[in-house]
C-alpha cells in the first residue's frame, strides 16, 4: 500500500474514531435533555480532549507509517497523487458545503450557539472523512 494511502487511512480512522466517539457522547446528552437548547456541561472539556487525542493519535501513527515506509515518506507527490488529492479535496469541499447547509437547519430548530458550533464541527468532520475517503478510493482506482 502506498505511503500516502496509509496516511489517508490514518486520517480517516482517527477522525471517525475520535470525533465519532465525541458526537456519540454529545448526542446521548442531547437525547437525555430532549432539546437542542443546550449541551452537557462537559462538552468543552470533551472537545479539548478530542482535539488533543486526534493530534496525538495522528502524530504517533504518522511517525510509525513513515518509519515503516522508508524512503517513500520522503518522496514528493507526483502528478497522479496531486490529481488524487485534488479530486478528493473537491469531494470533501462539496460534502462540507452540504453538511454546513444542513447544519443551518439547526438554527430553525432553536439550537443554542454551542449546539450550532458542534453542528459546524460535525460538518468539518464530514468534509474531512469524505476527503480522506476520496483519497483512498483514488489510490485504489489508480487515479
Amino acid at each position, binding site marked *: 500500500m502506498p505511503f500516502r494511502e496509509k496516511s489517508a487511512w490514518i486520517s480517516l480512522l482517527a477522525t471517525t474514531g475520535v470525533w465519532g466517539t465525541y458526537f456519540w457522547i454529545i448526542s446521548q446528552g442531547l437525547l437525555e435533555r430532549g432539546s437542542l437548547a443546550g449541551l452537557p456541561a462537559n462538552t468543552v472539556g470533551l472537545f479539548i480532549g478530542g482535539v488533543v487525542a486526534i493530534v496525538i493519535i495522528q502524530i504517533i501513527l504518522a511517525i510509525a507509517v513513515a518509519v515503516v515506509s522508508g524512503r517513500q515518506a520522503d518522496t514528493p507527490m507526483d*502528478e*497522479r497523487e496531486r490529481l488524487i488529492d485534488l479530486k478528493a479535496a473537491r469531494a470533501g469541499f462539496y460534502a462540507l458545503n452540504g453538511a454546513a447547509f444542513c447544519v443551518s437547519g439547526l438554527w430553525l430548530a432553536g439550537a443554542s450557539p454551542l449546539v450550532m458550533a458542534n453542528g459546524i464541527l460535525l460538518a468539518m468532520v464530514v468534509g474531512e472523512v469524505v476527503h480522506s475517503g476520496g483519497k483512498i478510493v483514488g489510490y485504489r482506482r*489508480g*487515479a
Partner: protein
Amino acid sequence: MAAPPPIRNQIRRLRFDHGEMTQQALADAIGMTRQTIVAIEQGKYSPSLEAAFRISRVFGVGVEDVFGWEG
C-alpha cells in the same frame, strides 16, 4: 466507475527490452512513484504530456513508440 482512457502503452515491453528495468528504476528516472508507473502500465492513469516525454526519453524512443491511441 469511469471507463479506462483509450490509451495503450508499451512500457512493460520497453522495460523488458532495457535490461528488465524495474518499475522503481523507471519511477526514479522520471521523478514519479512506483505506484504511478503501475497505474500507467495497467492503463488506469494517463500521464501528462511532460511525463510521457520523460518516459520516452528514458527508453530513447519517441512518444508514439510508448503511447498510442486505441480506437
